[in-house]
């Protein structure tokens, strides 16, 4: 049956809008409460070091072609050799990470706090919606739906002939739950505790498992084939230089800040930086 039901505007005034307002207010309240309850977590030195090792290994993998092959090989050995390589994690330790996460009291407390702050308001609001706002049609969804959604969206309505597009207020609640995230990031700034969906996704994939990422980096590093990009740099140079000739006037721009920026302190033994003391370079050139 596809007849149109006319919904009372009072539903809009007394159901849809108050529900949204209440959810926004609860979100703001949760944000401030979480700010108050945020405990300062001392970062574990081991975890920090592992994070840095991973960054360094990743850099090595990414820019491997820019350093001479000998230094690349020595670095690779440094990272992945069997005895004391930085990325090498013996099998026994690999399993411990998860168990450690559970047994570490601080981390467990932190996770529990975060979960609670998310679960309790959700549960309460859901119960409130069910209690007060059930048993009637709240809204009509603008696009047609199949019969399968009936059990999900029309929970309080016990008529099986009503078109599935007419939904109960529970579905409005869910819509708000997922949709207000954008609104919260506008009002509360980027970092807010109301990112439920993100947190729910995080809960399924268990947090920071250092040993896995280390072994992943190690495998990646083992795979890399070193091909020295600078082998042909001289060809590139001659190409660039031809361009330099052609440019003529444009090349006489202010000496690209390159020479000046390098600190003068250390490298004086090799020869001064600016062309004004060219004579010194000349003298040095005579010495070699």
């Amino acid at each position, binding site marked *: 049956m596809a007849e149109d039901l006319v919904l009372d505007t009072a539903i809009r005034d007394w159901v849809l809008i108050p529900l949204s307002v209440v959810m926004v207010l609860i979100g703001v309240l949760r944000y401030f409460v979480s700010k108050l309850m945020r405990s300062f977590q001392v970062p574990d030195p081991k975890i920090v070091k592992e994070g840095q090792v991973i960054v360094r290994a990743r850099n090595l993998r990414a820019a491997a072609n820019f350093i001479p092959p000998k230094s690349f090989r020595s670095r690779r050995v440094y990272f992945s050799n069997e005895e004391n390589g930085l990325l090498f994690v013996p099998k026994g330790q690999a399993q411990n990470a998860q168990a450690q996460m559970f047994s570490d009291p601080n981390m467990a407390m932190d996770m529990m706090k975060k979960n609670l702050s998310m679960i309790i308001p959700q549960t309460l609001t859901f119960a409130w919606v069910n209690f007060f706002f059930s048993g009637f049609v709240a809204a009509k969804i603008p696009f047609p739906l199949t019969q399968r959604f009936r059990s999900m969206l029309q929970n309080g309505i016990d008529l099986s002939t009503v078109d599935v597009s007419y939904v109960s207020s529970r579905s409005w609640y869910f819509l708000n739950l997922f949709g207000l995230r954008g609104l919260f990031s506008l009002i509360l700034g980027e970092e807010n505790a109301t990112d439920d969906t993100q947190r729910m996704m995080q809960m399924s994939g268990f947090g920071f498992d250092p040993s896995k990422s280390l072994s992943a980096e190690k495998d990646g590093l083992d795979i890399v084939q070193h091909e020295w990009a600078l082998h042909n*740099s001289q060809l590139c140079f001659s190409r660039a230089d031809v361009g330099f000739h052609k440019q003529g006037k444009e090349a006489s721009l202010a000496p690209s800040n390159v*020479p000046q920026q*390098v600190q003068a302190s250390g490298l004086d033994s090799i020869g001064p930086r600016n062309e004004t003391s060219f004579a010194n370079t000349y003298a040095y050139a005579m010495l070699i």
Partner: protein
Amino acid sequence: MVSKTEETQLNRLENQVDNGGGGAWEYLCLARKLKVRRPEKVLKYGLSILNDSKKRSALGPEEWTLYEQVAIAAMDCQCLDVAKDCIKVLRKKFPESKRVGRLEGMLLEAKGLWGEAEKAYSSLSEDNPLDQVIHKRRVAMAKAQGNISAAIEWLNKYLEIFMADHDAWRELAEIYVSLQMYKQAAFCYEELILSQPTVPLYHLAYADVLYTLGGLENLQTAKKYYASTIDLTGGKNTRALLGICLCTSAIGQVSKGRNKEDKESPELQSLAAKALEKDYKERADDKHGLLTCVLRSLKI
């Protein structure tokens, strides 16, 4: 490393404030974000904001970060009473803060009281072993006292934990070069190139170190890195052009007895020489004579 656009923006703001056009607060925020070192300007404009109670209250909670910034700038300019006042205000507001403790340590450093500063830093780092700033202050203190080997030791300890900090690698490389420990310096420059492969500075410095180390293999590698510097800067780097000429002639000298592998070396050197001559003619015509003498002597 500050990018070109950010630098021009900073200079523009500085000019604007210098000529009385307002915008001091934006200038200070930008200086703080980019971590550039302009102590006199920061001190002047920061104090002008802080001494004006209306402007100060307009800042709200940012007032305290401004106090910190001005305190550091004052220590840089050796206006130690200004620094002490700022720190006192901060200490009154945040009595148990480690950040203020750090500032007090820095004040002791600025006064030259190394022993007490060391004590303050060690007590702070006991509470918070992962504070990067305290580690860096220790290195700076050792360097200021002239104790370079202690500076190297501290820096190495720092890098064992925070090995992705490229500024620290750069500092270490410069210290090694100043001590003429070129092999270690080469390692540090390699780290820098790995983390930021498109910055021509590091290629240039690495090439310099390799050239100084000498030996046929190093000279050839140095030549390649000079070439890559020129590639990255579009042919404008005079130092790299000179480097190529010097490298080629040095390689020629070293491999005099053995069979020379010509490849494109003469072409490369002549190209570099031509580019150099053109550059000098345009920019420093009076030195052009010197250049021709040198190039002639290099083509042995």
